[in-house]
């Protein structure tokens, strides 16, 4: 059975483009262009994966997750955005998205990401891996390194670094001499730590780096 996907984006052209690319690999069961439409559609369709635009009127992807996550076990969210601003990325992942990819991602890569998210794995684009490394492990004072939150283990940092360098999970597994499952477990663990860190710490990090006004 193929994966059932809902596309949420306020740009019709982009929805059409993504849909055309996805139809080779997954089953697109609906599209929504507003937060309200998206919430109704997700409640009704109970899709496996929601492809979610970060920036939409009325609260964007974050609001969709907030309104549907409590009742939607089995539905997972993959954020998709033109923005590569760290605060956007971090905010949507913290609200519950299982991954983040930029809109310039190729069709096959997107299908691969959707498949992985549907299996409960975390999807890190190289950019997202870079942000997380920057936020958690940077060595200057402007990072979370001193904050009271779960630090990344050396192995997790190693995995993130390889993702940032463009390695696929299977290549990381081979390079580190571990199984793909272990790589996935490390990625999920990083995602959990990112979601658990308090909003205050992350927003301070973003502010100190002049990322938000």
């Amino acid at each position: 059975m193929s994966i059932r996907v809902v596309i949420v984006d306020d740009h019709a052209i982009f929805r059409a483009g993504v849909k055309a690319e996805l139809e080779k690999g997954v089953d697109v069961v609906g599209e929504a262009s507003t937060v309200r439409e998206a919430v109704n559609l997700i409640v009704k369709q109970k899709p496996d994966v929601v492809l979610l635009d970060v920036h939409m009127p009325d609260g964007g992807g974050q609001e969709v997750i907030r309104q549907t996550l409590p009742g939607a076990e089995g539905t997972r969210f993959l954020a998709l955005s033109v923005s590569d601003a760290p605060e956007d990325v971090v905010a949507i992942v913290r609200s519950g998205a299982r991954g983040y990819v930029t809109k310039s991602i190729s069709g096959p890569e997107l299908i691969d990401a959707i498949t992985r998210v549907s299996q409960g794995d975390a999807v890190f684009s190289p950019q997202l891996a870079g942000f997380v490394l920057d936020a958690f492990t940077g060595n200057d004072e402007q990072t979370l390194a001193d904050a009271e939150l779960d630090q990344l283990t050396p192995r997790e940092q190693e995995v993130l670094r390889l993702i940032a360098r463009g390695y696929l999970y299977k290549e990381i597994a081979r390079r580190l001499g571990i199984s793909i499952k272990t790589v996935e477990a490390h990625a999920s663990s990083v995602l959990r730590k990112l979601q658990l860190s308090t909003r205050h710490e992350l927003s301070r990090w973003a502010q100190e780096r002049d990322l938000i006004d």
Partner: protein
Amino acid sequence: MTEARRRLKRSTDGAFVAGICAGIARRLDIDPVLVRIAAVVLTVATGGLAAVAYGLLWVVLPVAPKADAGHDRLPGRGTGRNSWLIGAGVGLMTLGLLFIFREVGLWWSDALVWPIVLATAGAALLWRQFSGSTDSETEAVLANTGVSGGDRSADGTRISPTVAKRSRLGPYRGAFGFALVVGAAVLFLYINGAFDAAGDAALAAVTVIVVLALVLAPVWVRLGRNLGRERAERVRSQERAEVAAHLHDSVLQTLALMQKKSDDPRQVSTLARKQERELREWLSGKTGDERATSLASALEAAAAEVEERHGLPIDAVTVGDRELDERGAALVAASREAMTNAVKYAGDAGTVRLYAEITPTETQVFVRDRGPGFDLDSVPGDRRGVRDSILGRMKLNGGSARVHSGDGEGTEIELTMETK
């Protein structure tokens, strides 16, 4: 939310008198009762100075937008009855204050005290009238434009009866306030004998000035606020014009160019990426100087430059940053060469990636492609790019370079440069 919290505003929501204490409490996130107790204690302790400060804050602070969008509080607030009460209250407060002065040994004659009490009560009515009507105007505008949400604009019709009622009551209150102030002045002058034949003309003149100041102050304050608002509006429209000009010069030109080249997908994609980069750079608001001194920016710029020259995509991710020095510049040059090499020999096999991690002790750069790779020892001597520009340059500047390749997983050039 944060903006509302950051700036001190009068809070009309839980206002006792003018909402100063409630506003302070909201700003500090504590119970308004505590602030009110502190205010009373301060007033007594400073012999009334705190009350003067309260009055000043009343004039100066803007009114906070109401926290809840509900209108149930609105009719009760600022209606005629309320304003009368406040006028009387302020008068009594002034009287109380003057009694406190007497306790500490400062007592002016009755000739001064009673006119002051009357004048402050009148001024309170007048000022309340003016600041109140600005509130209601703002609220009416908010309700009509639906700024604070859909249900609010739906309520827009409900606000008009209130406004109408207030504007009907308004003139009476204003007139009474005015009468109080003028009456206080006349009383003052009469008691002091300024109406006698040998009256003191200077005293009369000063009194008239004080009356005018009391009556006109709210108008001036309001005028000042409106001017400020207009200025902000002008700044905004200027910014809009700037954005429009930028979009016109860059984005629209690129879009036109892309339509012309629509039969060449590679060029279209290169143009799109170039425009995307420019736009992001512009949005980031970093100045050229900031970019010129940053190692991370220099690496990203090098990636962009190679991508543009060869028309093949390079994705750059950087972690950390530091100032661009001589060694950094050598590292950037070597990275540029590595990227050029990668797009030349493997650019068609997939996106070339640059990853740089800058720590205080060292900088590592990885350039990865999806090509078949090569063995460094078997690189022919005529491929000087790799040997001289990458390995040689890194060694000369105290760094090192390694090449990982094979296993059909592409090639990765790793450059390491320690910080001096």
